[in-house]
């Protein structure tokens, strides 16, 4: 017997409903059912960070999370980080300016992970950035620019907050 069911979730601020088996990884549902292919499949065992998403603001691996576990919760993917007007988030802008990517496959996960870090720790020390971002592997080994981008995004966010204050 088919064990599909209706599951309601909120993705990037929009209410969604999918009909699927609840045990299916949310990574698959995002990519195949909702067309949000920014979240990448890398190792598929929670090590590489390519599928990093935020669930209620907390950094998680979409490959290890059944969609049933995010029912009724807020999921944020890389597609949800830019403003409604298309303006890039400070993290995205800093990755662009620092060249924080080479082939690009790990980039959405890097950007989502960095976003989670700066929400929790707005002015991280370089060591804290490296420790946090350790869970996002870049096989082009572009780590130097990635760390620079995260630090730059922290500076930019602080400067922006200063202007507004």
């Amino acid at each position, binding site marked *: 017997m088919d064990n599909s069911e209706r599951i309601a979730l909120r993705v990037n601020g929009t209410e969604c409903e999918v009909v699927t088996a609840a045990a299916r990884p949310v990574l698959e549902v995002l990519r195949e059912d909702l067309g949000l292919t920014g979240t990448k499949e890398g190792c598929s*065992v929670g090590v590489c960070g390519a599928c990093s998403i935020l669930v209620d603001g907390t950094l*998680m691996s979409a490959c*290890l999370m*059944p969609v049933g*576990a995010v029912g009724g919760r807020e999921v944020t993917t890389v597609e949800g980080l830019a403003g409604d007007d298309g303006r890039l988030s400070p993290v995205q802008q800093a990755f662009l300016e620092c060249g924080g990517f080479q082939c690009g496959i790990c980039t959405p996960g890097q950007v989502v992970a960095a976003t989670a870090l700066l929400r929790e720790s707005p002015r991280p020390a370089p060591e804290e950035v490296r420790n946090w971002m350790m*869970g996002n592997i870049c096989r082009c080994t572009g780590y130097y620019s990635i760390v620079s981008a995260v630090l730059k995004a922290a500076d930019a966010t602080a400067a922006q907050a200063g202007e507004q204050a």
Partner: protein
Amino acid sequence: MRLPDYHRPTTVAETLDLLADLGDEAELLAGGTSLVNMAKLGLAEPQHVIALGGVPELHGLTGVDGGLTLGAMATIRDVETSLPVRDLAPGLAEAASHVATVRIRNQATVGGNLVHADPNQDLPPMLMVHDAVARIRGPQGVREVPVTDLFLGFFETVVEEGEILEAVHVPAPPAGLRTTYLKFLPRTKDDYPTVSVAAGLAVADGRVTDVRLAVAGGGATPLRCRAAEEVLAGSDGGADAVAAAADALAGELEPISDGRGSARYKTEMARVSARRVLDRLLQEAAA
């Protein structure tokens, strides 16, 4: 491939009913970092998963009678960052901070970590050092098992079919007990240790009054090293006593050779690590 049916109990009682009904076709799902991977590897093939995210009784991390109760669904990140843990059992917060990556610590849970029972995990040795006790509930009621006695072998615990590990109690540590954790890993920082040692020590009037040692990666289960403790207890904590305790600890281990090192290498590194953690704690106590 048909995916398992997904159940969402809201109470522990309902969870136990589901376990009774579904028997060995069901697996409990906490953070998913172990079960989902085991299923992907074909090492677990549940027809049903019982998701525990909606069972409030299993969540939370609270101070109780001077100690702490960690709900089975408390995440490793909760253990790492919570102020009550940092105050009462800083070594436990430290051990938690060494688990995998922050993303995995956000998902992986205390209960899932314990029942997964990989012998290389960071949390069990430090829970052993703290004399932590697991609360296991089944159809017959509740039983309490010290974490030291929880593990039977690779991926095997005393938690039986139809039971659930619902919480871990960490008693208030005795005054003067210092703890530390040393994880030796020659590969990447998010890996399991080759071997790691958790230690607790108290010194009074120049004598070691309390000593607790436990090891991950030293065999088929994490292990509390009682023989090594006996060697050091009551001694002056001098270099000879520490070396003898480290030798005794190495003698208690039966590590396996694998990608993280040969059995002999793990044994030697456990000996070195034991000496280092004991030296560290003795120096702190003397300062």
